[in-house]
């Protein structure tokens, strides 16, 4: 079901007209109301009246995460604090958090886009949605919650953690839709297995997973283990939270709610706008946000945009599943590596579970030393060292061939890598390196 057919199936010319109208209004509003933007626009020599076409957006300066931190807490607010009804912050694992303020209209907008996303994954009023994203300052929990309302979906606001109870409730309430991070879904599968539960006895039909990059191979694993169809959802606190884009039943690219979030792909080095189909950094302008609107916000996420005649009937632009993040990107021995690439390779090697961790250290010789820890699973454990050495060599060779770098592969005992209820900590970088993106 398409939640808002008028918008989601709109023809391109009409959509662009709507976007331009909203963009003009937005630029005028932030120029008048937010000194931060006025100063930036003036410095760039651009006035609101200079924005006459959608392409004119490239005249506007980018906004970065670093600037959001510098203006903490309310420097980007474009409305009176009295009109703000909800505040969220990014997880703040990398320093000062960034703040998103929502007016009533913003929250209505959020409900709307999240409802569209849930509908893309097939949810409707007949469904019971178990929301295992964390509730709180993190946008995941409440974002999904806001979206379930307009759809009439029964929501179980269980939040993350307490996995045994999650599995119990899943059976008791016959949950049909699960929302959580992809790594937490696999953790659930593991616990279910220990409890002797079989997901084939459950009622789950769809899982909507996001908040961290995950690979296609991980999707296959999740779909097999949890016996459901796994949809990728994308969002970030700065823009709105979850609901920026989501996959439909085709599972081929995420439809962007482009009437609210205007996407661009840029060359991360030069800032130049790239045409559709070219890979680069994803940039968003929040066309209708009132609380903390953002102009050309650099997400650091790497992907590309495309339009196809999607069989679902939606005409909105699609973004390919994330290829990684600029700031997730590891530079090892001079080679750019995304953890998702390592995961992909690992899962292609028969019987290797996606429980892994990458530990990077720089030796006194200034050479990077990378250790990839992989848990030894029952199904490939052997009583002979040579069998395990063969697996280890195979992982090493595959990595070397596909990434072009040599990793030290270390086989570790199952469950020795810390499990996470939220985002899995895949990389431990012990090197003292300058961080990209103003962090």
């Amino acid at each position, binding site marked *: 079901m398409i939640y808002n057919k008028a918008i989601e199936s709109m023809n391109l010319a009409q959509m662009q007209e709507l976007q331009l109208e909203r963009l003009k209004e937005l630029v005028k509003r932030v120029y008048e109301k937010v000194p931060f933007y006025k100063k930036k626009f003036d410095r760039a020599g651009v006035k609101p009246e200079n924005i006459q076409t959608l392409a004119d957006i490239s005249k506007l300066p980018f906004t970065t995460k670093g600037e959001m931190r510098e203006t903490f807490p309310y420097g980007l607010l474009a409305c009176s604090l009295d009109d703000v009804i909800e505040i969220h912050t990014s997880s703040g694992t990398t320093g000062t958090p960034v703040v998103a303020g929502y007016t009533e209209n913003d929250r209505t907008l959020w409900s709307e886009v999240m409802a569209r996303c849930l509908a893309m994954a097939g949810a409707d009023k007949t469904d019971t949605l178990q929301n295992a994203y964390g509730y709180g300052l993190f946008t995941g929990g409440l974002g999904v919650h806001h979206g379930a309302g307009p759809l009439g979906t029964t929501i179980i606001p269980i939040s993350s953690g307490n996995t045994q109870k999650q599995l119990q409730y899943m059976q008791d309430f016959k949950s049909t839709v699960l929302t959580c991070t992809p790594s937490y879904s696999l953790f659930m599968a593991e616990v279910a297995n220990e409890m002797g539960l079989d997901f084939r006895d459950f009622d789950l039909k769809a899982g909507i997973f996001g908040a961290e990059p995950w690979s296609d191979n991980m999707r296959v694993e999740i779909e097999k283990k949890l016996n459901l169809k796994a949809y990728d959802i994308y969002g970030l606190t700065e823009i709105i939270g979850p609901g920026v884009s989501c996959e439909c039943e085709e599972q081929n690219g995420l439809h962007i709610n482009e009437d609210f979030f205007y996407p661009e792909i840029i060359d991360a080095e030069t800032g130049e706008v790239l045409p559709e189909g070219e890979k680069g950094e994803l940039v968003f302008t929040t066309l209708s946000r009132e609380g903390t609107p953002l102009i050309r916000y650099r997400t650091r996420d790497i992907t590309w945009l495309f339009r196809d005649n999607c069989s679902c009937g939606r005409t909105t632009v699609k973004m390919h599943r994330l290829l990684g993040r600029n700031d997730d990107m590891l530079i090892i021995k001079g080679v750019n590596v995304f953890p998702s690439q390592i995961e992909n390779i690992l899962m292609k090697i028969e019987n290797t579970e996606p429980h892994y961790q990458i530990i990077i250290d720089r030796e006194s010789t200034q050479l990077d030393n990378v250790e990839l820890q992989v848990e*030894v*699973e*029952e199904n490939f*454990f*052997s*009583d*002979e*060292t040579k069998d*395990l*050495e063969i697996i280890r060599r195979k992982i090493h060779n595959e990595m070397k061939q596909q990434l072009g770098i040599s990793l030290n592969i*270390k*086989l*570790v*005992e*199952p*469950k*020795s890598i810390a499990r996470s209820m939220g985002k899995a900590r895949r990389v431990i970088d012990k090197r003292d390196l300058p961080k990209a993106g103003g962090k």
Partner: protein
Amino acid sequence: MKVKQISVFLENTTGRLAEVTKTIAKAGINLRAISIADTADFGILRIILDKPDEGMKVLKDADFTAKQTDVIGIILDDQPGGLMKVMDIFNRDGVNIEYLYSSLINEKGSVVIIFKVEDIDHGLEIVEKAGLEAIASF
């Protein structure tokens, strides 16, 4: 007769072997043979227990990666040439040995040596044909 060996994956860190022995001891299970194959990063502990099925259960409950494998325990004379006799036979009949180690059984001038061979049924057949005895249980 085949006997059940349990292998346990161990990281090369302090205290892991102690954990295994503690787990077995607490369950009142006795070790009948033990050996370790080690590499720089990990080891594989191979043990034979008087109660193999119970042993397997307590190890798994303690979250160890453990696996059961069939091996042959051959009873040999505890005197010069005892092992040589088996080796000669295996060599002659093309029985490929993956590894071997000695058990703790030593009574009435006999010892038990544990053999993991490539094809266990073939190995057993050769042992019996040569008039040697494979231990039935520990």
